[in-house]
Every structure is written in structure tokens, then in C-alpha cells.
């Protein structure tokens, strides 16, 4: 019989989907900002492009609005990590032997050598999620840095302005904001694959877990302590 384990709290699941939607909006509006391709010199008059909402102004508005959502959902994500063990599974515990053992097993599975023991979340995934959180933070920091510097003495500039200068200047900030956007998308593609694969190979309800919160295991997963 499958053992049913409640892994993801409702708050985490809601956060996950909001995060997904905002990042998609941010990515596509961001790409458009980088290379505005809809309206060209043969496009509409300024007055009418506003009507069509095809403007750079509107796209940027969407980007920044989604940016705010991303910021607050990110803060929310950190906040809930304090209240539930299961919400802290993004921390790669590389100081434990179990972590390295898990990495080894996961790699072995991906190389078709042998399947790994049942795990609620394998350490490779944990590491990837950790990096993604860092990247999201980076996007928020550079994003609000660039956004805020239209008022160099304002609030956002004082909170995140520093990252622009530590990257070497505005050009570099745009540059890395753009590069990391693609890295996040790269993660997204792989993320979808590995989640589906896990579901397929281990029949553990990996995919549905982000909807209903539960995963199924035949044997007790090795990292059961992370949720209990």
C-alpha cells in the first residue's frame, strides 16, 4: 500500500502558483522590454498604441506590477518557512553525509544505473531550489535597483541601489538581470521535466502534490524527518 504523506501546506502551494504566474509575466514582459518587437516604425501613432496596450509604458507597468507581486510573495515564502518544517526543504544540508549520499543516488538514477531510495525531495532538487531562490532574490534586487534609481535618493534606491553599483553600473545591472532571467527559464524547463519524471518513475504523485499537498510512498522516505 502507498503511504500518504502531507508535504506541502496550502500557503506554500498558493505561493508556488503565484510565483509561477508572476515569473512568466516577468519573463515575457522583460524580454519585450529588452527587445520591443511589436510596434515598430511602421506601427501605430503614439496615441493609438496606448489604446492597444502595446506600449513600452504598459509593458513596463506590467513588469513592475508583477515585480511587486514577486517581491511580496518572496517575502511571504520566507515568512512561512519559519512555521513549518516542510516549508524549509529548500535548504541543502551539505554538511550531512545523508546529503552527499542522496546526491550520489540521484545522479545514479539519472544515469540509469539504479533508482534512488524513496525521498520526499532529493538533495539535488533542494540545491536547485536554493539556487533558484537566490536567483529570484537577485532579480528582485537588480530589478528594484534599476527601478528605484530614477529617484536616486528614494526608498528603493536606498534598499537595492547598492547592487547596481556593485555589479559595476547600470549597464551591467541590465545585463545580468537579462542573463539571469534566462537562467531562471532554463531552470523552469528542467524543473518541469524532473518533476514529471519523478512522478512517472516513482509513482509518488509528485506533480499532483503541488495541487493537493500529498505525496505517496511505498516505503518510508529517507528524509521523512524534514516534514514530521
Amino acid at each position, binding site marked *: 500500500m502507498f503511504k500518504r504523506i502531507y508535504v506541502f501546506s496550502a500557503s506554500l502551494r498558493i505561493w508556488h502558483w503565484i510565483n509561477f504566474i508572476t515569473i512568466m509575466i516577468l519573463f515575457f514582459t522583460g524580454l519585450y522590454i529588452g527587445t520591443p518587437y511589436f510596434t515598430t516604425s511602421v506601427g501605430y501613432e503614439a496615441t493609438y498604441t496606448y489604446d492597444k496596450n502595446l*506600449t513600452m509604458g504598459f509593458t513596463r507597468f506590467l513588469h513592475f506590477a508583477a515585480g511587486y507581486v514577486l517581491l511580496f510573495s518572496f517575502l511571504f515564502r520566507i515568512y512561512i518557512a519559519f512555521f513549518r518544517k516542510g516549508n524549509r526543504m529548500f535548504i541543502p544540508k551539505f554538511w550531512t553525509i545523508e546529503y552527499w549520499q542522496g546526491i550520489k543516488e540521484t545522479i545514479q538514477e539519472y544515469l540509469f544505473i539504479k533508482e534512488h531510495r524513496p525521498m520526499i525531495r532529493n538533495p539535488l532538487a533542494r540545491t536547485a531550489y536554493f539556487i533558484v531562490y537566490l536567483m529570484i532574490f537577485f532579480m528582485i534586487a537588480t530589478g528594484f535597483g534599476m527601478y528605484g534609481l*530614477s529617484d536616486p535618493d528614494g526608498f528603493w534606491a536606498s534598499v537595492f541601489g547598492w547592487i547596481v553599483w556593485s555589479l559595476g*553600473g547600470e549597464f551591467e545591472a*541590465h545585463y545580468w538581470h537579462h542573463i539571469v532571467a*534566462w537562467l531562471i527559464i*532554463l531552470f523552469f524547463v528542467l524543473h518541469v*521535466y524532473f518533476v514529471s519524471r519523478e512522478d*512517472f518513475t516513482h509513482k509518488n504523485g509528485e506533480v499532483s502534490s503541488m495541487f493537493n499537498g500529498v505525496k505517496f510512498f511505498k516505503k518510508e522516505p529517507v528524509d521523512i524527518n524534514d516534514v514530521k
Partner: protein
Amino acid sequence: METFWEVFKRHGVSRRDFIKFATTITGLMGLAPSMVPQVVKAMETKPRVPVIWIHGLECTCCSESFIRSATPLASDVVLTMISLEYDDTLSAAAGEAIEKHREKIMKEYWGNYILAVEGNPPLGEDGMYCIIGGRPFVEILKESAEGAKAIIAWGSCASWGCVQAAKPNPTNAVSIDKVITDKPIIKVPGCPPIAEVMTGVIMYMVLFDRIPPLDSQGRPKMFYGNRIHDTCYRRSFFNAGQFVEQFDDEGAKKGWCLYKVGCRGPTTYNSCGNLRWYNGLSYPIQSGHGCIGCAENNFWDNGPFYERIGGIPVPGIESKADKVGAVAAAAAAGGAILHGIATKVRKSANKEEE
């Protein structure tokens, strides 16, 4: 030393005109009208400041820009506001006479003169890519900085390194703040800086006897507080999504936004958009060319100038980031599919075995 008011009187300026002048420049410096009395007071009490202006590796465009200033006119600055005691480009005297004079001024006004540096020191070959009097420029720079009250870094050369510090930086040229670390340095970047920005900085320092408020990068806030993009008169076309696609196309004739032909306005801090060049006459964007970011650190290496964001930081790959990103995402998806098929095949094989 004389006060400003005395200098003006000496030049036959009436008290009324003097107050008028003070009011004008108060506005010019972005100060509230309530500051006028303070400005007047400053002008009545502060003496003319000696300036020593030295040149390292540079192209002298900063000096050239300086003399293009219309308000105030360079002649007025040089002969009535400051005392330009040493300058390779304008000083009449030469040789030992001018060098001795520099030493004399340094001694006489120790702690009171302003050092203006145009260009930068190369550190390669022990500094011998730039030699003055048989000595490396970097030595002259350190020596002259010692007794200075404050140091002005003219242009992108002194502020950031500029063209000679672009890759591969054959002479190992560095900005002056890499060499002088114990003095206030006012960075006035630009290649060259706008003339009125240069004279404005000098005027502020002379009038208030302190350095202008600086941003975190050491640049005067009143001239480098905003991006060109935030003050650009073509910004409404940017917001509307009306772009020049290629030089001299319809959009170019209509004066649309130059974003897509590589404008660096969104990433450049300078007064081109508001003050503009030549007392408001024009600026590169107004003439139809994107900003090349000449007031920014590293702008030479952030090319090519006609593309917004260049390649990705992997040597050997020169495509634009979006292209590489799309290819990488597609490759990842493809890889995932292949891996997925392999997984499935394996799994069914395993099942059969069982």
C-alpha cells in the same frame, strides 16, 4: 586673497548686478531662492581659489570642453573666479618656470588649492607610458595631490579609466582614485563632460568652499543624479513603443526613441537630457545617434554600441543573450525529452524483466 565681491567690484560690477548675478547662479545650482543671501555672503567672504590642472594619459577633450562653457564663459572662470595657476594647455609659461611655479603655489596654498586631474596614470612599465620631465606622471599626480584641498577628476579618464583602460588596457591605465585614496575626489565623468557641468562644479566649490553633494559613486548629484533615459525628450516615444529600427528610417526622421539602435540612455548618468550640450543646444540623441554611455564606467567594453545588450559572458560565443537563452532553453527541453524517452524505455524493460 580677495573676495568674490571685491573681484567683481574691481571689474566694475555694480552691487545691484552683483546681487542679480548671485540670484541667477543660485537658481542655476538648483538651490532654493531662500539661499540667495547665503550665496551672496559666500561670494563676499570667500577668496579666489588657486587651481592646479595636470594632464596624464588623455586626449585633452576635457580642457576643450571646459572652454566651450557659455555660462559662465571660460574667460570669466579663468580670470575672475579661480586662479588657474598651472595648466599644460593654457599656461603661458613653460619649462622650469612653470614647474617652479607649481611648487610655489603648492607651498603657498598648502591645503587650500584645488587639484584638477585630466587623464589618468598608466601603471605599466613603472608608469613610463606617460612621462613628464623624465618622471612618471603617477609621481607628479601623487605629489600634487598631497597638499590639495580637494581633487577634481575630469572626464571618464580620471574617473573610470576611459579608452586607454579599455581591453586589453595595454598600459595598465587606472582611474585616479586607485592611486589617491586619502583625499576627497569629485568625479566628473564624461568623454568629455558637458562644459557647463565642468564650470558648474568649479563654481559651486568656489562659492561654497566645499565639495558639491556627491552620490555613492563620487559624482555631483546635481549633474549625475538621473539617467539620460529619465530626462530624455524622446522618452515619450519610448513609452509609446515607437522606435528607430535603423538609421535614417522613417522613425529616425520622426525623432523616435533610439533604444533599438543601441541607445545607452537607460544606463547612463549624465546631464545630456536636461542641460544638454552647448547651453541647451543639442545632445547626441537629439542629433539622431544613441547615447554611447560615455560617462559610465567601462562603457568602451560594453559594446558594440549599436546593440542594446551584447553577447553572453562565455568566451567564444558572440550571439545576443536572447538567442543563446532561447537555444539553451530549447536544448534543455530537447535533452529532457530524450532523457524522458530513455527513462520510459528503461522502465518498461525493467518491468519485463520482473
